[in-house]
């Protein structure tokens, strides 16, 4: 078993090795905002949040197409550093994305894609864990902060195993134990079961958080790389999460469709 903090140290080193590209939002080290505190003295990140970008379609710079807005990438440095054979696979994924993207079959999108799906999520803090409740597919993540390390593997989960700690006002989440069945976006950017994700949630104002993600996967990439984006607190009075039970709608649509490929053996 690999203690979670070992991966955290590697992740920290990876973050320090990066110089943010021009135009990327401030790093967690540069904010001076002090958020309110929960009753047990931790930064209070609770509430309803949402990303407001095009990363769910493509985390790199991309033009528009039907139904897909153009957008600047959220990958620091521009391009994802694929190994050559992995880049070929990404391009094949892209060509067949409409049917190959597991999210198009309503499978759980994994981490960090669940964060930037175009749906809100709610953060709930308790003494033993931070829970993130996602409108998309009513997904839940329990980020344990009870002193337990990652459980021993091998484990392959869609959403990985999350262990959190505070670093100043930043919630740092270490995630391992992924399967290889999720993509980072609709554009075919993928990973293996060796994926290791380190998330950093840093409040930068009462209504903004900086979300930074370090991705490590020695089977797919030549080096660790990083995404960053803003998260916005939903401002509507009486904002709430609704339901998006994706597979219910998909099954209902496809059940009586003689041309459906949903029920084919893969």
């Amino acid at each position, binding site marked *: 078993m690999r203690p979670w903090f070992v991966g955290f140290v590697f992740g920290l080193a990876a973050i320090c090795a990066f110089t943010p590209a021009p135009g990327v939002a401030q790093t967690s080290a540069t904010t001076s905002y002090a958020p309110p505190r929960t*009753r047990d003295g931790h930064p209070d990140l*609770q509430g309803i949040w949402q990303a407001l970008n095009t990363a769910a379609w493509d985390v790199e710079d991309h033009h528009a197409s039907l139904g897909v807005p153009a957008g600047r990438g959220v990958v620091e440095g521009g391009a994802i550093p694929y190994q050559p054979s992995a880049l070929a696979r990404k391009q094949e994924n892209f060509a067949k994305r409409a049917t190959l993207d597991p999210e198009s079959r*309503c*499978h*759980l999108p994994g981490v960090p894609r669940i964060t930037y799906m175009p749906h809100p999520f*709610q953060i*709930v803090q*308790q003494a*033993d864990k931070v*829970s993130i*409740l996602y409108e998309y597919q*009513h997904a*839940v993540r*329990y980020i*344990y902060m*009870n002193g*337990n390390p990652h*459980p021993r593997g091998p484990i392959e*989960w*869609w*959403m990985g*195993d999350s262990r959190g700690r505070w670093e100043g006002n930043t919630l740092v989440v270490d995630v391992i134990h992924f399967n290889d*069945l999720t993509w980072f976006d609709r554009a075919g950017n993928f990973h293996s079961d060796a994926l290791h994700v380190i998330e950093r949630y840093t409040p930068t104002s009462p209504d903004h958080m900086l979300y930074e993600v370090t991705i490590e996967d020695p089977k797919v990439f030549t080096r660790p790389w990083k995404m960053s984006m803003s998260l916005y607190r939903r401002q509507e009075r*009486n904002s*709430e*999460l*609704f*339901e998006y*039970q994706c*597979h*219910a709608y998909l*099954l*209902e649509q496809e*059940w*009586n469709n003689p041309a459906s490929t949903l*029920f084919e*053996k*893969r």
Partner: protein
Amino acid sequence: MSRRVVAALTALPAVLWVLVLAPGPAAGQAFWPKETPKLPMATTWVAQKAKLPPYTPPRTPDGEPDLQGVWSGAGGDNNSVLEEHEYIDVTTPAQESFVSDPPDGKVPYTPWALAKRNEILAGLARGWPGESGQRLYTSPGSFCLTAAPVFSFDAQEIVQKPGSVIMLSDDAYRVIPTDGRPAIGQNAKFWLGNARGRWEGHTLVVEVTSLNGKGWFDSTGQFYSENTRMVERWTLVDANTIDYEVTVEDPTIYTRPWKMNFPKRRAGTGPSGAPRGISVASTLPPVDNDPYANESWETACYEGNTESLRSIHSLGYQWFTGVTPPR
């Protein structure tokens, strides 16, 4: 696997193998010997709670009755059959009804709705009494669909925050505002409906509207409609027991409002006293001081059940889209 379990498995009709072997909805499936005494549900609970002394729950720092903690589900046969029944097969032992009112324990359908219900029951094709052998619908639960009020029949952790009560399960959640905000309009319909909570004395009252009517109460086709309103009452009746009661109202398909009632026990406070079936979990030796015992780990029911979905589709079951009651 014990010899009793192997013997029980060989008695299963073929179609049940689909449900038994699939991880996900059948995870934790128990197998029940024929001699199992009738499992308790509403009748036993109503009698037990009448004898409980008055109880004043502790309060949260915000002054609400403190319902926080991890709570068991209704137990029994995993709400396979809602009404009172005798032993059917190894997955479904004799059990009391979930229905506490009307006193006969039966869902009070209108004649039109009862005919619909019997049509669904006849088309389940499990080899159970009352079936024709033709396939019509199978339970929405088979598709890992989360629906009201079944979320409340299962285990959850209750967390209380100012202005809301949050219920967490291993693959879903409910956030129930208690701040008096209005519900969403009735043309917006959901599997879990739209919930609004308020405190009445010691009781959390949760009104659920905007239901899409596509869920079942059990696996036999006991249904509701998009006109249904459910009112749950969650009351701490001793330090380790929540009295869960839900009133179901829908004049388009029921002749009167009716109720279901059972206890939810605080996790780790000992067995409920009812006999337990034999499951894989019950044959494993307990792990002392497991540091992960209180953690809730991923279940990914839908992702793990693509094979059983394929089987159900190829067997020719139709997709249940709810009932359309006459005006």
